[in-house]
């Protein structure tokens, strides 16, 4: 074959049409349940029959005392956990970058693959052991601690990925020009890491806001987060209020993920 302009075009994939059909079906399979949830959240009827557009379930959700309280709890927990996890995770990533330690890295990976239920049970056991010695009870603070624990590794992963693309001579140049270690970190490394740290924080926030399994283990009797409240409501039977609030959560999380991806690409 001679070199023809055809070579410039995209190569034809055999069965390309089937590939796109397959992609559409896979996407539907992934997102159809969510789509149905959203549709029924604006359905006037209480049942799964379309009766026309209405926002009454949203209004009901916003007036539900228990839901609003648990949402507030979730926000408090997520914000506090994100704050701690971001600081700890960023410093941990920085340390790993400066002095690669296979053991610490492996330890972090371990916490990524530990089943949630195992982590929940072990945390509960840990807290109960601690409570023998100190006067403590389960509550929002134990949820925050648990969330910091499992979201740190995500922060480390995201921040470390960015650090690995950073030129180490930048920090050396700062030292060389008279900056102390802290000034070099503060004025050179940190600003360059800022987008990645932002992305990591959003990720930690989402993971914390979403968590059910571990949270339900360490929450104690009188603090409830939004996923716990939704779970309880859903078990009591079909309730369009659950659809409405879930749609709002999906919207919030989706937006945060988009922002996080944007930051990560910067």
């Amino acid at each position, binding site marked *: 074959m001679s070199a023809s302009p055809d070579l410039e075009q995209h190569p034809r994939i055999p069965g390309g049409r089937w590939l796109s059909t397959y992609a559409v079906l896979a996407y539907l399979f992934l997102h159809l349940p969510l789509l149905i949830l959203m549709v029924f959240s604006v359905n006037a009827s209480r049942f799964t029959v379309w009766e026309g557009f209405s926002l009454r379930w949203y209004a009901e959700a916003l007036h539900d005392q228990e839901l609003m309280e648990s949402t507030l709890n979730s926000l408090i927990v997520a914000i506090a956990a994100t704050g701690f996890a971001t600081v700890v995770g960023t410093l941990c990533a920085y340390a790993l970058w400066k002095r690669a330690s296979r053991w610490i890295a492996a330890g972090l990976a371990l916490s990524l693959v530990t089943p949630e239920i195992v982590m929940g049970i072990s945390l509960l056991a840990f807290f109960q052991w601690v409570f023998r010695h100190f006067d403590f009870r389960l509550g929002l603070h134990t949820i925050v601690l648990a969330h910091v624990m499992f979201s740190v590794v995500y922060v480390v992963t995201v921040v470390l990925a960015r650090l690995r693309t950073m*030129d180490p001579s*930048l920090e*050396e*140049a700062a030292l*060389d*020009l008279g900056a102390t270690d802290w000034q070099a970190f503060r004025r050179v490394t940190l600003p360059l890491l800022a987008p990645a740290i932002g992305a990591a924080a959003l990720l930690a926030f989402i993971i914390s806001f979403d968590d059910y399994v571990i949270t339900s283990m360490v929450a104690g009797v009188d603090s409830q987060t939004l996923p716990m409240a939704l779970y309880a409501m859903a078990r009591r039977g079909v309730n369009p209020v659950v659809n409405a609030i879930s749609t709002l959560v999906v919207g919030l999380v989706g937006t945060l993920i988009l922002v996080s991806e944007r930051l990560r690409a910067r």
Partner: protein
Amino acid sequence: MGEVLELRELSRHYPAQRALDELSLNVSEGEFFSLLGPSGCGKTTTLRLVAGLEAPTSGRILLRGEAIEHRRPHDRNVSTVFQNYALFPHLTVRENIEFGLRHRHGGRPVDADKRIVELVEMLQLGDKLDRAPEQLSGGERQRVALARSLVLHPDVLLLDEPLSALDPNLRKQVRDELKALQRRVGITFLFVTHDQEEALYLSDRIALLNAGRLEQLGTPQEIYQHPCSRFAASFLGRVNWLNGTGIRPEATLLSRDQPANSERVYDSVVQRCVFLGNHLHVEAELSGGEHFIAELPCNSEGFQAGERVHVWWRAEDELLLPI
């Protein structure tokens, strides 16, 4: 002129390797001093030790007579121009240049603004001050890196192959500018390169390194004309080995008639003769089979391939090497 920088038996050993082994040398005030050597011979290591970015295994570093080997990098009045320039990408050119002044020990010097204005003018960066480093050409980046370091008036400016990131056409021009700049600011330069031509062209003195050790130290002329070893002789330029004697190509002479000098004459056969503009490049072979190159003045008459000629040289042009 006094010594600015003194290295005394400075060593840096890694588990697998002696990156630098007992290097001793003195650099004088205002000198353009080059560290020359092949890849991996310890040039960058030396600069990093002086800058404090790495700690020596043993040995001392004296800056204006004071031992600095235990000081942190920000506590040494030297500054580095990194090979890739390491400009801060999130700061503008102006902020890059002011970075060191902001963090300098003892606060911003009173004449800081004057220093900036002078350097910016000298390095022609006036219209680039508000740009980000990524909006600059390679040559401009290099000038910003120079300005950023020079504005601190370091006792010694350390330069790690600052020309290697530039394209070859620009390199010669920037080389001239660098030399002129050094004369103008009068700051001592410790310059690292693996390019012998660059080192010869720029330096007041050269330290030739080989596998972490000092091979030879001297002016460009001394090292080129009186190399102390075969390694030094061949690293500084081409050498013809004619029956065991080292001769530079430009000192290797050819003639059809028997030359007057009768001691250093051999028969040879021309293989190739090419006119290269500034000289005539002749490749030939001794009857013993040794291949050599002669660079003759461009107005000499050419030779034919296969022609038999006499090769000879002057006694004073022989490279005298210890056996």
